[in-house]
């Protein structure tokens, strides 16, 4: 080879990348950080409710909830936008994280429930005498944190291993993820499985012994969610900037080429699939204490599709796009469902069609500098 290539002049080439983010993006990240950690707590807790600049609790709750969705959208982007695998089952991983946290919160209620029993209310109602086996670790906060990561990871890993090993791709993969989520939803709907049936878990009182509805607790959860979102964003940025991230994009563009270049796509797909499931699980665990309820509706078909819509509307394969998309779609949703509640789903459908037709790169695609080589 080298003999062939003994050319007198070898051009010096450099990869077109350096730092994790450009200076502008770092400024944006810092601005987001300051907003979440300083500005929002100050405007919400520091100012009296009558003040013109006071941020109502409603908005803190709403933004906190949307930031959880944004984490899901980011996870969708890694697996769909960058690796080209459309999952309609990420609602399951979100719900698994949420249910794991919900079980802990149910145990924290203690004897303050309607029936003044050590068991959660729904179990008393079902005339159960003891906690089922899968509730064994639910009174430990540390174990809950571990399980929030391990449960979605384990299920995603096993499912992904068999699906990717069998080389299930494209729309077939999307369909089986949806089927899996639907099956899980039916399972969680049943009273016998011990997840509260169709009511799920609600009426939480405390987290770590502290009142869950206290303004400071809620603000703490808000800040924690914001920091998690920023942390995941930076992690995702590091991933897509690495050679690993470029292999993922290569799998999206030409998987057979990747295989015949010597990479095993299974390992790459399985790792990013599991990671994105964990991200959704963490988002679910942050969501439940803020929203105060988790039920099998989070696993519905519509919930899984909505996550894909957030990513598509914001702009796939851009990382910031899905976050923008989650805020835009959910912001629109909360406004629409107040003003024209019956038209929301039509609007959502129309928006999805419009984005598909006119904005292939989503909302952020509008603002992207049309550089010569990336159009």
């Amino acid at each position, binding site marked *: *080879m080298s*003999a*062939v*290539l003994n*050319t007198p*002049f*070898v*051009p*010096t*080439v*450099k*990869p*077109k990348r350096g730092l994790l983010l450009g200076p502008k993006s770092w400024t944006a990240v810092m601005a987001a950080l300051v907003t979440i950690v300083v500005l929002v707590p100050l405007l919400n807790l520091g100012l009296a409710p009558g003040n013109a600049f006071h941020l109502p609790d409603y908005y803190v709750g709403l933004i906190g909830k949307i930031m959880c969705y944004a984490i899901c959208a980011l996870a969708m982007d890694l697996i769909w936008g960058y690796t080209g695998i459309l999952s309609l089952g990420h609602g399951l991983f979100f719900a698994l994280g949420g249910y794991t946290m919900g079980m802990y919160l149910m145990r924290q209620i203690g004897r303050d429930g309607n029936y003044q029993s050590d068991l959660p209310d729904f179990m008393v109602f079902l005339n159960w005498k003891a906690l089922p086996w899968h509730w064994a670790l639910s009174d430990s906060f540390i174990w809950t944190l571990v399980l929030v990561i391990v449960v979605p990871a384990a299920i995603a890993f096993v499912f992904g291993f068999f699906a990717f090993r069998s080389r299930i791709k494209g729309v077939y993969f999307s369909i089986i993820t949806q089927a899996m989520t639907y099956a899980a939803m039916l399972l969680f709907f049943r009273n016998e499985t011990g997840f509260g049936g169709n009511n799920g878990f609600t009426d939480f009182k405390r987290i770590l012994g502290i009142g869950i509805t206290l303004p400071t607790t809620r603000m703490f959860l808000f800040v924690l969610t914001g920091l998690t979102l920023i942390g995941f964003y930076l992690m995702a940025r590091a*991933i897509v900037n*690495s*050679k*690993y991230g*470029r*292999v993922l*994009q*290569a799998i*999206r*563009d*030409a998987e*057979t*080429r*990747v*295989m*015949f*270049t*010597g*990479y*095993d*796509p299974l*390992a*790459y797909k399985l*790792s990013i699939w599991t990671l994105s499931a964990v991200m959704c699980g963490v988002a679910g665990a942050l969501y439940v204490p803020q929203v105060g309820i988790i039920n099998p509706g989070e696993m519905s078909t519509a919930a899984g599709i909505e996550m894909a819509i957030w990513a598509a509307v914001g702009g796939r*394969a851009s990382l910031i796009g899905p976050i923008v998309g989650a805020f835009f779609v959910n912001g629109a949703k909360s406004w629409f469902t107040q003003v024209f509640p019956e038209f929301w789903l039509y609007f959502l459908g129309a928006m999805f069609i419009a984005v598909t037709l006119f904005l292939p790169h989503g909302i952020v695609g509008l603002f992207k500098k049309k550089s010569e*080589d*990336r159009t």
Partner: protein
Amino acid sequence: MTPELMEAGRHALDVKEGRATPFGESGGRQASYGRIVQEDEVDVAHGAILYLDDITVSFDGFKALNKLSLSITAGELRCIIGPNGAGKTTMMDVITGKTRPDFGKAFFGSTIDLLRLRENAIAQIGIGRKFQKPTVYEQLSVFENLELALKADRRVRAAMFHRLNGEELDRIGEVLLLIHLKDSAQRTAGLLSHGQKQWLEIGMLLMQDPKLLLLDEPVAGMTDEETERTAELFLTLEGKHSLVVVEHDMKFVDELTQGRKKVTVLHEGSVLAEGLLADVQNNQKVVEVYLGR
């Protein structure tokens, strides 16, 4: 004490202290037939780098390959021609692990059984393949396309922390120069012309530094000038690498064989004729099935 005894004593001590393993029946040596057997290293001491024997592949009763036997010598440039449906692409599928034959043998060198390996393992031991339709990573830049093909550890963890060193950058630069894409290094691969994509894919193969290159219609869609350059490039690779070129363009085949190399004609899944291009072109059977029409 004789040197042999001293050696034996030293070994016995090493065994005792766990530095060496005890001799087996053959005195700790592996059967090597006079040369050293190296695991996962292609062994071409018998001359052949690729050896296909009696390969049969059938799809729903249709025999895409019918008892195909073929042997490629190390360093050889072999052109394979044949009408559509002769089994040329299926043959490449078998060699690269995409298709499993119903029966037959496929060896890389004299020790590596290709039928036991998966696609990515076959690529790693040194068989590179160019597809009929140029297959590059459309959304990545030309540079990134080459970077991913660069010979390196293919595992996930290695890819996560990989940093290009100067030597690797130089190598990418050399290949960019060779495939005439050095001014397009930062362009998105999807924006290249068809011919340039073909070149890029060839460049990606070169980055892998395979011992055997399988090239499926490498000049399809290229201009005459590009075709000529491709022929020159392949001729420089010959010797150091082994090449199997499937092509319909007889002018290109003629340039590659230079009137002295063997050409194989496939028809209905087996070898119809083998020999110099001129002889093959005058072969009555070949004229009937292919060239005469």
